């Protein structure tokens, strides 16, 4: 795997490899010294054009745990504010010869474009409403730890599917791991034609009891303005996952950040059925595994000096034929 641009292009074997690697990093995480030297001397750039807490902090910590040098750039306060194009920003950062660029961008396809402009491995940390592959991987990881396997499990993804890259990536990943996926939300927030991805669509929570896992999506507060829903109050009354609707054997997930009392009630967030905390913890080890899978097997660029045996071997020596 050269880049991680979307879960769409990661087959089941490649997913399994990352998940197994993540297991071994979970082991490391239980030690006193949680750092491994794998990426020593190599540089990871995180480039975030959107606000983020979980994804940015877990990628940054993942890079540090792997002993990489980290450059973290946020669009706000950078040259992006001065009108620099994505292409020029990437060219600038590529001059540091990074091993990986982790990018979040408000528009679909940004990570893919960046991959065309740099020799670094590119990790898509969310591009518009398109994909969020590391989220899908950490959610699969979390569920596998809890359930053993996703084979035949019924997962309901509930809420604003239309504006959710998490819904798209998770739908693909869950199905690839053998689960059956149902999307549920108001018709205004379910994209027309999405059932062609191989899922069921329903506009009602009536059959929610069928689900083994309920994956609630964040309901953005501004959606009311565009009349996607008449009111958040009505939305909550119709689609909120609360103690009445969530059965005792069902697991609850959410990508965060949660709007307490909108898409899920406070009681279920804090219930033992909620995996929200596990998801965040999984984020770190899965993102370590992603960086490891992309970079560890890949020789450092010959342009970098003092970067381990691979680089030394590649460096031309005077007097020897090239």
């Amino acid at each position, binding site marked *: 795997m050269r880049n991680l641009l979307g879960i769409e292009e990661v087959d089941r074997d490649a997913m399994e490899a990352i998940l197994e690697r993540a297991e071994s990093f979970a082991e490391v995480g239980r030690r006193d010294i949680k750092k491994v030297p794998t990426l020593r001397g190599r540089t990871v750039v995180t480039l975030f054009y959107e606000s983020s807490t979980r994804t940015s902090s877990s990628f940054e910590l993942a890079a540090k745990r792997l002993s990489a040098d980290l450059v973290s750039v946020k669009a706000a306060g950078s040259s992006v504010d001065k009108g620099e*194009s*994505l*292409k020029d920003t990437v060219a600038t950062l590529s001059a540091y010869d990074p091993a990986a660029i982790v990018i979040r*961008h408000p*528009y*679909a*396809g*940004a990570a*893919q*474009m960046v991959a065309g402009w740099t020799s670094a491995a590119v990790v898509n940390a969310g*591009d*518009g*409403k*398109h*994909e969020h592959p590391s989220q899908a991987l950490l959610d699969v990881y979390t569920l596998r730890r809890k359930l053993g396997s996703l084979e035949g499990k019924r997962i309901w993804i509930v809420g604003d599917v239309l504006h959710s*890259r998490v819904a*798209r990536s998770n739908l693909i990943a869950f199905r690839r791991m053998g689960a059956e996926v149902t999307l549920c939300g108001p018709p205004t927030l379910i*994209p*027309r*034609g*999405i059932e*062609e*991805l191989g899922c069921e669509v329903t506009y009602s929570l009536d059959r929610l009891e069928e689900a083994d896992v309920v994956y609630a999506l964040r309901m953005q507060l501004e959606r009311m303005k565009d009349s996607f829903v008449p009111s958040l109050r009505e939305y909550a009354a119709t689609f909120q996952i609360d103690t009445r609707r969530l059965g005792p054997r069902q697991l609850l997930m959410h990508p965060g950040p949660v709007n307490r009392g909108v898409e899920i009630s406070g009681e279920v967030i804090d219930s033992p059925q909620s995996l929200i905390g596990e998801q965040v913890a999984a984020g770190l080890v899965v993102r370590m595994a992603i960086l490891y899978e992309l970079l560890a097997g890949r020789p450092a660029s010959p342009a970098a000096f003092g970067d381990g045996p691979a680089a030394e071997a590649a460096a031309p020596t005077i007097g020897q034929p090239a």
Partner: protein
Amino acid sequence: MSGLPPTGDSGAKSAAKNLTDLLDVRAGQPADLLLRRATLLDPVAGIDGVHDLVIRGGRIAEIAAPGEADANGGEELDAEGLHAFPAFFDPHVHLRTPGQEHKEDVETGTRAAAAGGYCGIIAMANTSPPVSTAADVAALREQARAGASVPVGFVATVTVDMKGEELTEMVELRDAGAIGFSDDGLPIRNARIMRRALQYQQLCGGNIALHEEDPDLSGDGVMHEGAVSAAIGLAGVPSVSESTMIARDAALAAYEDARIHVQHLSAKESVDVVRAAKAAGVRISAEASPHHLCLTDEEVRSLDPRRFKMNPPLRHESDRQALIAALRDGTIECIATDHAPHHLDEKEVPYEQAAMGVTGLETAFAALHTELVLPGVIDLALLVERLAGGAAPFDVPRPTLAVGSEANVALCDLAAEWTVGEDGYESRSSNSWAEGRTLTGRVLVTVAAGQVAFRLRSFSLGVA
């Protein structure tokens, strides 16, 4: 200039015999050419077969039996195995001048047209600033006379600066030579303004070409709404965004007995509306673009805005099939490229941020020949007829091979294979939807308004 009498579509303007009666081109040497043993095909004039075609003084002088004609001192081309068609006419081109000459101008845009086999084009008015005054039209006509390789007509905007609020001085614009009217790039949102424009057409004549889209339904959509947009998370433009506006304007045109031309039809629903309107006697014509006839929204999975982002968007295969059926039955009478040059800076950004539009003049014939004629979807004769069909809606005389007419001829090698973009473009911009495709069929020579407008560089002149 004095006001023209009300013309409608049957007045003085429609009596034009030559393209240059209505359009402007750089004056040059009238062509004296003999196309020896060319396969002529002009389905409208009923000309079909191998002949010698003689162009003398810029007019079709003679169609003779193969090998019989005399070059009479003119240039002779060995056209054995080559096809000569009436040159094509594109009613929908963006020349980007004034204001965006880094994308295109009259000279580069008309060179691209000539290279595509076109003998005439109509330039849209969504420039910066838009073409909204008689002085704007006069200045553009001046530019065309100074540097256009093929005749150009200029539409003026329907509303001042395309704001959709007040009508332009339509009578004066027509007097200044505006070929018609269009706010292309934007719909005319307000039905009352639309109705006023149709009423005013009774006074000033000139067709009104419409970019049909309901901006409220389109919202922030950037591609066709369907399974692909759902799968890749791009906001969709529903087909009904187009068809509902066409239905509104067809009803208004019927009510005012006015004439409208619907631009770049993209959706099956739109085809249905136009077909029904025609059946009801509404004076409505319609065009479709080569990219909508060749591609579907599946291409957008690549997230490549340079080739696959345009408005209206590429739609579903069932829409493409509906457009082809409409092309066959005449619901769509012409092919228009909507040639929309953009600088790479506006295309080398994520899909949602990129400018909308693709170029098409240089590839239209070859692409449609490759994608529709060679697989047997449509006949060559139909393609040739529809590629020149854009003249009639604007009262421009249809290019023809008939003896005695102004010479407007595209000489093509239907077997030639070429890769789009390999040798660059005549256009100043490279956002061709066909970039990298290998096409079969190539324009070798274009004669426009009696002048040789284009000659492919590698085409050797086989003087017998």
